[in-house]
């Protein structure tokens, strides 16, 4: 079942098209990454999903109900962590957690609140306005998780978090995912998307560039780096390797074929190579090549 379904959505602000004909879906239990450069339309897309702003065209469904007609029962099943956390500064952290539970008509499990506050090292007595950026983010995380949502939408959740809290957050999110919770994560941090997400959507200038299964990305494509006086560009081409970067004494290739064929080709070269490295293609590589390809098509 699709928990999130975006069908040809677009958003215009006057003449500016922020999101254009965007379609993808997220299945239940997925840890879905949503990445793109600044101004790509990620936050606008999420704002449309949460009905902060209306779509200029297309349809969005969350948990089987169309936005904006979805009812409060659907909203109760969603947790949201905004990128820019600006909660009520005059309220103490404990009051904010209490209000969040009250909005959801929940009593709240004291042990669970304690667990989250201890885990993220939150001082509940402090006023929200007196907290640092990182601590504000932690409060937003607790408020987004405390009501046991089935779908968690997060916009740059690790901004301002130290590495320890970063690791703890993803441990909690992984636990949630194992319980069947769907997680939609927008991030600039490609490493965290690569480490935790099962699928990722790439967006640029409001348009979807692609949706990739990350496990497939890593398994299928290798990045081959060759260093030497004479680089075997032609031989690599014959085995289907695609040159993605070439300098004087170094070249990088994307290669989808079998490794025995690659090593056999390299061992038959007349000139010696100084260095050969074979690595899984990481998300950054994928991200850059997708954007460069689109840029090339534009030009």
């Amino acid at each position, binding site marked *: 079942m699709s928990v999130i379904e975006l069908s040809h959505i677009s958003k215009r602000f006057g003449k500016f098209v922020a999101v254009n004909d965007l379609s993808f879906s997220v299945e239940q239990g997925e840890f879905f990454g949503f990445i793109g450069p600044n101004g790509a339309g990620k936050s606008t897309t999420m704002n449309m999903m949460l009905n*902060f702003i209306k779509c200029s065209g297309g349809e969005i469904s969350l948990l089987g109900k169309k936005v904006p007609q979805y009812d*409060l029962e659907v909203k109760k099943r969603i947790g*949201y962590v*905004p990128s820019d956390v600006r909660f009520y500064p005059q309220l103490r952290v404990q009051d904010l957690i209490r209000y969040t539970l*009250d*909005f959801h008509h929940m009593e709240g499990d004291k042990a669970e609140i304690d667990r989250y506050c201890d885990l993220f090292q939150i001082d509940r007595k402090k006023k929200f306005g007196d907290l640092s950026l990182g601590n504000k983010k932690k409060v937003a995380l607790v408020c987004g998780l405390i009501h046991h949502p089935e779908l968690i939408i997060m916009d740059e959740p690790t901004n301002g978090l130290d590495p320890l809290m970063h690791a703890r957050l993803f441990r909690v999110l992984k636990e949630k995912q194992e319980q069947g919770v769907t997680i939609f994560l927008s991030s600039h941090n490609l490493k965290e998307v690569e480490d935790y997400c099962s699928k990722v959507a790439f967006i640029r200038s409001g348009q979807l560039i692609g949706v990739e299964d990350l496990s497939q990305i890593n398994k299928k494509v290798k990045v081959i780096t060759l260093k030497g006086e004479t680089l075997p560009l032609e031989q690599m081409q014959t085995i289907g390797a695609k040159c993605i970067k070439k300098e004087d004494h170094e070249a990088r290739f994307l290669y989808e074929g079998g490794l025995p064929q690659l090593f056999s080709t390299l061992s038959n070269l007349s000139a010696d190579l100084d260095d050969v490295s074979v690595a899984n293609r990481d998300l950054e590589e994928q991200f850059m090549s997708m954007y460069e390809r689109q840029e090339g098509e534009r030009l």
Partner: protein
Amino acid sequence: MTLFRLECKTHIKTLLIWIIVVGLLTLGLVSLFPAMKDMGLQQMDLKSMPKEMLKAFNLSDMGLLATIKGYFGYEYQYVMIATGIFAAMLGTNALSREESEGTISYLYAQPISRISIIGQKMLANSILYTLYWIVSMAVAFLVCLIFKESGASVSNLFKAFSQLTFAGWVMGLTFLAVGFLLSSLLSSNKSATSLSLGLVFLTFILGVVGKLKEDFQALVYFSPVDAALPSAVFKNGIEWNYIVTDLIVICISCLLALWIYRRKDLKV
């Protein structure tokens, strides 16, 4: 009703400050009454001024200034203007502040509809205003009892204050509702104070112009302050045509605010 509680908690300090300031102002103004009466304020010669001008500024019957009702009625009109500003500010800030301060990203992520946001905010601010007004009127009544001239009837004064309480309450709700309408259009509260001041003074001036020129008499209906001027209420009782006009404005403003807020893109 979580938002209702949150809204009340947010405004409680502002409410207390306004109550204290208006209470002290009332005490200060009314405490001058015995001295002003002894100085012969009512005998001040304003005959050289046009009658319309005196009427516009509620000075048409100088003799009344020798009574607590007359004196209070004249002085308190300025507090009525301040009350209008307070109510308008509550309204104009109510929705726009959430977007301006970014708290809407927390609020609207909760299971709450836009209708519920506006409804609970309207209710909370109406109650806060009502509380402010009841306390202010109670203070004013007590202060008037202390400084009233000998022979002034307490029951008469109570009746006059009851009518003023009602008329002033409707006036404040009118400004509150129009403020709400403005708030539903704004995505920042930076201009809320200036808009509130502008709204109250503009409508007050319309009332003054309406009283100055017979041809523009209809303008008085656009002035909620005129519907609740203490001197007029003490003299003529509640003028229901003004009250009905205010109630219509309240209904239209609230419905329009709901309609706009349900459709607008929230600034996150």
